[in-house]
């Protein structure tokens, strides 16, 4: 195996890994930490993508548009948390139904208002060659963003005062409140961060795919699967889960094609839930103690 082959292998892995991390990181906070089964996760992704494309078509530079889109999705997330999600912290299954209702409302309204597709923006040019293969630079940018998101989450939740308060609130809201933490605000901000990360995912993938209001469905299975495999401890679980799933997916995709890759991932999840109901992070946490 030549160096070029090796790099090609890494490149494909990085591609799937970035997709899983970016689509799952927002859900990891909302579902993994806060316990809200957010079926509207895909719609926050869609929101990020549409804002990005809309701004770029208005002449805003791509990178700036992407950042603004993530912020917009985050703000919408805070509003949604205030009006809907807030009531469901003690009723996880109802949160699923409520957000699914929301998701239906949003996708179908978008179909009514915007129509089935809007003018997309092309993937940023730029490629490089390693050996006989050429690669798109943008895919590596996505990988770098995924790593940056992981590092950023680690810093926010492990190194800041907000992070400590947030983790305390998720662990025991009543106790945190008694100790003076403003749990309502912390929940709202955490949900906003989750929604913002979903928006970022949509913003980053907007140039690479066709924009349709139902595009959220493309992401939703992968994100849930990654979070479920990752388990309760988001900071420890999501990255190993993405690596694990990316490996399976890549091996199956390469030899049998996309659809077997998806089915294989589904089987892997059923097996993981069977063997490790708490997800991969439970093993890592146990080791750490």
């Amino acid at each position, binding site marked *: 195996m030549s160096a070029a082959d090796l790099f090609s292998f890494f490149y494909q892995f990085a591609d799937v890994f970035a997709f899983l991390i970016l689509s799952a990181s927002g859900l990891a906070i909302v579902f993994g930490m806060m316990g809200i089964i957010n079926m509207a996760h895909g719609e926050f992704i869609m929101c990020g993508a549409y804002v990005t494309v809309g701004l770029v078509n208005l002449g805003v530079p791509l990178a700036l548009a992407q950042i603004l889109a993530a912020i917009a999705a985050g703000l919408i997330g805070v509003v949604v948390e205030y009006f809907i999600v807030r009531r469901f912290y003690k009723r996880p299954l109802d949160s*699923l139904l409520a957000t*699914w*209702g929301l998701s239906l409302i949003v996708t*179908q309204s978008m179909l*009514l208002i915007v129509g089935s597709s809007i003018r997309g923006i092309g993937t940023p040019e730029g490629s490089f060659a390693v050996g006989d293969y050429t690669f798109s630079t943008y895919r590596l940018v996505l990988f770098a963003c995924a790593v940056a998101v992981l590092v950023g989450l680690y810093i926010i939740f492990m190194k800041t005062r907000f992070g400590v308060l947030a983790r305390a609130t998720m662990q025991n809201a009543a106790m945190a409140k008694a100790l003076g933490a403003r749990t309502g605000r912390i929940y709202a901000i955490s949900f906003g961060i989750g929604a913002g990360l979903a928006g970022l995912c949509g913003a980053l993938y907007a140039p690479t795919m066709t924009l349709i209001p139902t595009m959220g*469905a493309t992401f939703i299975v992968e994100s849930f699967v990654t979070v479920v495999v990752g388990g309760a401890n988001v900071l420890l679980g999501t990255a190993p889960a993405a690596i694990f799933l990316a490996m399976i997916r890549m091996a199956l995709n390469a030899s049998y094609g996309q*659809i077997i890759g998806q089915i294989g991932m*589904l089987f892997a*999840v059923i097996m993981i839930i069977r063997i490790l109901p708490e997800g991969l992070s439970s093993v890592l946490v146990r080791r750490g103690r």
Partner: protein
Amino acid sequence: MLRLLDGPQTLGKGPKFWACFLVVLVAALIYPLFADSYDVGNFAYFLLWIFMALGLSLMWGYAGMLSFGQTLFFGISGYTYGVLAIVMGGGSTTIVALVLSVCMAMLAAAILGYFMIWGGISGIFFGIVTLSATLVLAFFLGQTAGSEWHIGAARLNGFNGMQGMDPLTVGSLDIEGSVLYYFMLVLIVVVYVALRMFVNSSIGNVIVATRENPQRAEMLGYDVRKYQLLAFVIGSGLAGLSGALYTSWGQFITPSSIGLPAAAMPIVWVAFSGRSDLTATLVGSFLLLFGFQTITIYSQQAALVLMGALLLATVMVAPQGFVLGVGRLIAVRWKRWRGGGVAKTEPARLQPDEV
């Protein structure tokens, strides 16, 4: 056997309830005499979805398993019916195709259910796995456009879906129009009555016990997994019945009947109606389907927005379901009016705390 018709697991009992039931049934029976054949066909179309809703009510309301896989089994059965009706040559063999496709859905449910239930997957994970399986099937069928995807003479045709299969036929009688309507009506009465007897039987009571408290049911010596699997297979089989009838009704089926947003529809019907009662599910689903179809004529998106809004409103305002809530209210008012002001509410049924 007949005394199982009324029991602790179903609302409505005694002569008054069954008198109402008979009035509705008679009205349904003579309806085709007054309506034109187009409306009768439409009504038959609403009725075919009821099985799927009743199945979900059994799984979710009675057994406490929220399955998003109703359209998965709907699709498996619908496609199986399509393939079999074409491969076996149509005609009277379509009845065999109907039976086999429902069996196929139940077999698939047994396999998936075995892996999930014996694998200890419950609660939200049950929902996530069934939804993933549903979306994977929709995705798979969507990419079968090529001519290599065929079973005998039956082409799967990717997103455009299968077509050209015979509708249900007995001898020279096509089951279409008002014949189909009566066929559905009979099936619904049979399924509804059978399910009532099932949930009030000793098996049904155990199924409810596994929802209320799985550990306690297990301590009492019941193998919880078997009862859950039974409920899952029956519920999914009913979704399969809907699927095969749907393919026969329209003589086509596409992957969009399986994926989103179709997969959300049974959840909306059953949640809105009141998942923990069969009668509420029957009435509510029919009302919603009627309303949905009326609006769809103008705009399908608007109808789906309304469905989403109803789901959201149900969860936020009446988590146990609107139809069930209204039904209880009427029952209480009725008793208060009859009892001269002293309201003696019926003994509250055990409600699932957090299913």
